[in-house]
C-alpha cells in the first residue's frame, strides 16, 4: 500500500486526536470522507462505475461473456475478479510493484463474494452444464489515498447494479443441438439483483480506538486493521485481518459491531445514490473523466 513518512510528533497528534473522536480533518471515528459515485461511464462494457473517496479513485468495469459452467456447479454462472493497480496511483506501483496489492484485493473480493446469497448465480445460467454467463469484473486503481478496499467494494456493487446482460433464448434443433439466439433489441436485457451484495468496511486500530476510512497518514499510525464485508441487512460474509500488529478479541467484537452499523448506513446511502442516478435515465449528463 502506498505510505507516507510522518514524524513521531505528528503520529502522536493523530493518535491523541482519535482518542478524542476528532480526526485531523474534523471527522469522527465513524465518518466516511465525501464520496462520489458515477456509473455507466465506460461505453464498451456491460456495466461500469467510478468511485472517488477523498484522494482514492477506483474504476470498475464488468463484462458479461459466454462460458462453460464450473464442473462442481453446473447450473450457475460465476464472477471473475481481476485488479490492476495503475502506476499512477503510487510510485511503488511502477512496473510490477502493484501486483501484490492487486492480488490481495482480488483474493479479498473472491472471499467476499464466496457466500451463496451475495449474487444470484443461478440467474446467470443459460444451459445447465453447457453455457452460462461469466461476469469478468475488472478493477482499476487510479489513485491511492488511503483505504483502498472500501471504495473497491462500493464500485463493484455500483457496477453490478449497472450491468445489463442481454437476454438469450435457447432453441432446440431437430437433431437436438442447441442454438443460442440473442434478442435483437439492445435494451432487452436482464439486470442483476444487488440487494445482497456486500460492501467492505475497513476498520483501522489507532491507539485504543478504531477508525473507519483511514487516510494515508492515519494508516501510517495504525498497526492493525480489520476488514469485514457487510450486507445491507447487517450480515457479515467475510472477515480479514491486515497489518503487522495484533488485535485483542474484545476489540475485534467492538470493531465488528461498529463495522455492521457503518456498513448498513453505507448501503442505504449507496442505494439512494444509485436509485437517483437511475431515475435520471438517459438524459443524465455524464461527468466522466473530463468534467
Amino acid at each position: 500500500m502506498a505510505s507516507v513518512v510522518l514524524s513521531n510528533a505528528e503520529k502522536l497528534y493523530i493518535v491523541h486526536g482519535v482518542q478524542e473522536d476528532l480526526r485531523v480533518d474534523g471527522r469522527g471515528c465513524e465518518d466516511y470522507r465525501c464520496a462520489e459515485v458515477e456509473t455507466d461511464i465506460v461505453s464498451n462494457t456491460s456495466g461500469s462505475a467510478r468511485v472517488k473517496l477523498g484522494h482514492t479513485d477506483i474504476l470498475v468495469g464488468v463484462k458479461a461473456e459466454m462460458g462453460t459452467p464450473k464442473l462442481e456447479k453446473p447450473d450457475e454462472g460465476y464472477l471473475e475478479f481481476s485488479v490492476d493497480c495503475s502506476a499512477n496511483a503510487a510510485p511503488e506501483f511502477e512496473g510490477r510493484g502493484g501486483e501484490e496489492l492487486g492480488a490481495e484485493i482480488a483474493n479479498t473480493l473472491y472471499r467476499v463474494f464466496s457466500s451463496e446469497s451475495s449474487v444470484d448465480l443461478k440467474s446467470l445460467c443459460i444451459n445447465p452444464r453447457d453455457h452460462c454467463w461469466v461476469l469478468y469484473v475488472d478493477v482499476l486503481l487510479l489513485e491511492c489515498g488511503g483505504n483502498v478496499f472500501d471504495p473497491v467494494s462500493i464500485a463493484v456493487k455500483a457496477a453490478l447494479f449497472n450491468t445489463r446482460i442481454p437476454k438469450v433464448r435457447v432453441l432446440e434443433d431437430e437433431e437436438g443441438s442447441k442454438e443460442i439466439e440473442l434478442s435483437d433489441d439492445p435494451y432487452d436485457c436482464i439486470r442483476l439483483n444487488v440487494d445482497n451484495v456486500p460492501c467492505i468496511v475497513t476498520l483501522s486500530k489507532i491507539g485504543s480506538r478504531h477508525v473507519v476510512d483511514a487516510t494515508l497518514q492515519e494508516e501510517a499510525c495504525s498497526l492493525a486493521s480489520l476488514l469485514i464485508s457487510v450486507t445491507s441487512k447487517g450480515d457479515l460474509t467475510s472477515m480479514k485481518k491486515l497489518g503487522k500488529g495484533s488485535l485483542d478479541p474484545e476489540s475485534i467484537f467492538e470493531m465488528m459491531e461498529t463495522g455492521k452499523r457503518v456498513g448498513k448506513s453505507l448501503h442505504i446511502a449507496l442505494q439512494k445514490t444509485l436509485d437517483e442516478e437511475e431515475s435520471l435515465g438517459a438524459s443524465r449528463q455524464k461527468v466522466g473523466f473530463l468534467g
Partner: protein
Amino acid sequence: RGHGTYVEEEKLIASVAGVVERVNKLVCVKALKTRYNGEVGDIVVGRITEVQQKRWKVETNARLDSVLLLSSVNLPGGELRRRSAEDELAMRDYLQEGDLISAEVQSIFSDGAVSLHTRSLKYGKLGQGVLVQVSPSLVKRQKTHFHDLPCGASVILGNNGFIWIYPTPEQKEEEAGGFTTNLEPVPLSDREVISRLRNCIVALVTQKLMLFDTSILYCYEASLPHQIKDILNPEVMEEIVLETRQRLLNLEG
C-alpha cells in the same frame, strides 16, 4: 517579457496557466502547479529524508532534495564551537528521518539545490501539529510567514507549499531553540481550531485562492456556521470560498 511568456503578433501571451508577476517592465508568469524554486531568504518547512555524514537531506517539494548542513544548525545549549566527530554521531539524536523542520534558505548551489539553515531560535524541529501540502505558487510572499492567528492556533506558511498548523505555545522557550518537542496531548478546543483551519486551507487551495494570513482568517470565520467535516463538501466549500473572496475584494477596494 519574462519566464512563462512569449510574443506573438506584438502581443505578450502567457505560455503557462498561473499567476502574473510584474517587476517594472518584466512580466513573468508563474505556473500554478510547479516544484518549489528556492530563493535566498525564503522560509521553508521540510521533512528529513536522509541522515548523511555532515548533513541532512530535506524534502521540500523542489526538484532536488534540499541540504541542511550540520554547521548550519544550533547546537543544544547554544554553544559556539567547531563541530566534532561526536556531533556527527549525535546527528540522529537531533533530527531523524521523517522529522519536520522549519528553516530558512541560506544559499543555492549551482545545480539548483537549496541549502538551508536553522540558525535562529524561531526555526528548528517542529512538534505536534498538522501538515498541509499545497502548490508553492499559492503561497503569497510576505514579510513574515509565522502567524499567530487570533482563533487560537499558529501557522507557518512555507514558501515551498508546506503549511504547518500547530497549537500556539503558551510561553516562549528561549533556551531550547527548537530541540525538545512538547509531547503532551493537545486539548480538544485547540484540536477543533486546527482541524477547521486545515479544512479551510484545503478549501482555499481547491478553489485556487492565494494563501496568506488574512485569507485564511476570513475563510475560518466564514466557515464557523458549518461543522468542521462539512467544509470539505464541494457545495459548502464553494460557498465559504465565495464569501472569503467577497471580503477580500471589499478589503482591497
